[in-house]
């Protein structure tokens, strides 16, 4: 079976992350960039499915030239090839435009059975792109998977949300988004790093995937960030000393915060 994994390069959560002052888009230069951790898990899940069922794993990524580092990481873990949609026109694209671009990129590939994505990225955190991509492809979407099984004909997941756990099943082709509970991703090996250098990566422009430049990017984005501010520094919490009245004081505090 042929599996596509959607991957994104994000600023390392270990470094300080900023938005640019000019247009409130991500300041990519200010932080180290890495393959999003949730995408490592998506790649791992695709590799496990490939190891069980055979087939090929293709990584699809939208991002600036530098995102080829994230693509290389996925390839060094064991993915077979990659499609990199890289175009200046994409700068500032929102979730809808990103989903359109990714769906169009998937459309350039032949016979895709399964798309695996992370449920949300650690930078944008919209958590909407996987569902939008499925909608655009006209495929079933199975989101928030903590477990994935596929026999090559259908896919079944355990979907975990605040409401509980449900088993969801669909025929292929389908899209699955995975949570951080799905697996522990493997480390690449040095052999994998050497092999990744020889794996095919096709770099496509917006036009190459069949979109026009005025459909994507900040200028035509349906949603825009109009202002941003750094998170306020953490303030010291309230200390309750229990002198027989501790329980009452805690309840008073919680009800003051409208938590009980």
């Amino acid at each position, binding site marked *: 079976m042929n599996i596509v994994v959607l991957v994104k390069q994000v600023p390392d959560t270990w470094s300080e992350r900023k938005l640019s002052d000019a247009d409130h888009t991500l300041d990519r230069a200010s932080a180290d960039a890495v393959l999003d951790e949730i995408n490592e898990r998506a790649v791992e899940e695709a590799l496990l499915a490939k190891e069980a069922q055979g087939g090929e794993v293709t990584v699809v990524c939208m991002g600036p030239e530098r995102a080829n580092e994230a693509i*290389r990481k996925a390839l060094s873990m064991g993915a077979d090839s990659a499609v990199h949609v890289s175009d200046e026109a994409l700068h500032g694209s929102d979730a809808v435009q990103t989903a359109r671009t990714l769906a169009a990129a998937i459309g350039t590939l032949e016979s895709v059975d399964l798309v695996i994505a992370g449920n949300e990225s650690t930078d944008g955190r919209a958590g909407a792109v996987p569902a939008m991509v499925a909608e655009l492809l006209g495929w079933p979407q199975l989101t928030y998977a903590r477990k994935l099984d596929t026999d090559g004909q259908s896919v079944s997941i355990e979907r975990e949300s605040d409401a509980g756990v449900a088993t969801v099943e669909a025929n292929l082709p389908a899209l699955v988004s995975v949570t951080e509970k799905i697996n522990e991703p493997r*480390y690449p090996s040095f052999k994998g790093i050497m092999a990744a250098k020889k794996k095919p990566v096709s770099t496509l422009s917006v036009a190459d995937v069949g979109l026009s430049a005025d459909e994507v990017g900040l200028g035509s984005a349906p949603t825009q960030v109009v202002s941003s501010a750094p998170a306020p520094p953490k303030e010291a919490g309230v200390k309750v000393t229990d002198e027989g009245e501790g329980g009452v004081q805690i309840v008073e505090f919680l009800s003051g915060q409208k938590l009980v």
Partner: protein
Amino acid sequence: MPAHRLLTTTEATDLLALTREIARDEIAPTTAEHEAAEHFPRDTFRLLGKSGLLGLPYAEEHGGGAQPYEVYLQVLEELSSASMTVGVGLSVHTMSCFPLAHFGTDEQRARLLPDMLGGDTLGAYALSEAHAGSDAAALRTRAERTGDGYTVTGTKCWITHGGVADFYTLMARTSDDDISCFLVDGATEGLSAGPPEHKMGLTGSPTTELHFDGAPVAGDRLIGAEGSGLKIALTALNSGRLGIAACAVGLAQAALDLAVDYARQRHQFGQPIITFQGLEFLLADMAAAVHSARATYLDAARRRDAGMSFGQEASVAKLVATDAAMKVTTDAVQVLGGAGYTRDFPAERYMREAKVLQIFEGTNQIQRMVIGRHLAQV
């Protein structure tokens, strides 16, 4: 702040990124605990092996990574920043593979090296004896010819990985005048390790005596010609010293990072202590020591990679880097003040770990002797 490295290939960039990820996520979190409990992290070496990091500077045809020393040493440096037991362990393992890789026959290399570089096994280097430290040529362990092979009797000292290694690269006397090199399987009958020494630092790494009590070693485990063992040992040490220099820089970098981080956060007299010139200059000297030590080992490594002689440069690198590590770790304790003297912070452990670097793989007095002899020869 991790060192900002100038790497010339994509695979080196990706290799260093992988190394940092493993060091940060898999090694650093448990180092203090393992060192305090004197626990050798054997599983960490299995992970390094699986990731292809236990054979980096050796040929691909034998399972190595075919990486230049310039790259291998920087991997070693990064691992050492996370754990000296792991860094020194990798350096010793790499040195233990050196005699076979460079002096073994094609047949021996094809038969034995893939397992040694493959990641599942760990090596140790058995040269020193109680009365033969700096004067390695005074060693007394004997390998007597018996039939097709040898019978080894004697006691080795200060063996890193003693008792946990899967193979030992052994120097033993094959006659009154001759020292020879052997590759001995760790499971050999008559071979046993003593209890771990009670050391000042590097407490996660077992250092033991190694007893050979009539241990049989097959004739095809002789590396190089009979009598060439001392030359092989000293050649291996030349490269091994570069490893120790890289370990020292990794340790010094960790101590510098800790001290800078603390000095930025710690306030006295209403301001961060890093803004006081007394500390600023101390930290600047520490950074200069780390940078210059790194430059020194990288220069020696590039000479080695280019096929130039590098013996003198390797000794300079070992001397400069390990003295720098001693100074930087001592100053890190000073920057942290009282906190630095407690075991709640790693500064005091770094300082204890630095001391041995000036002692093993040729004391820094021996390095000066080597450098001096190079000067006298010219």
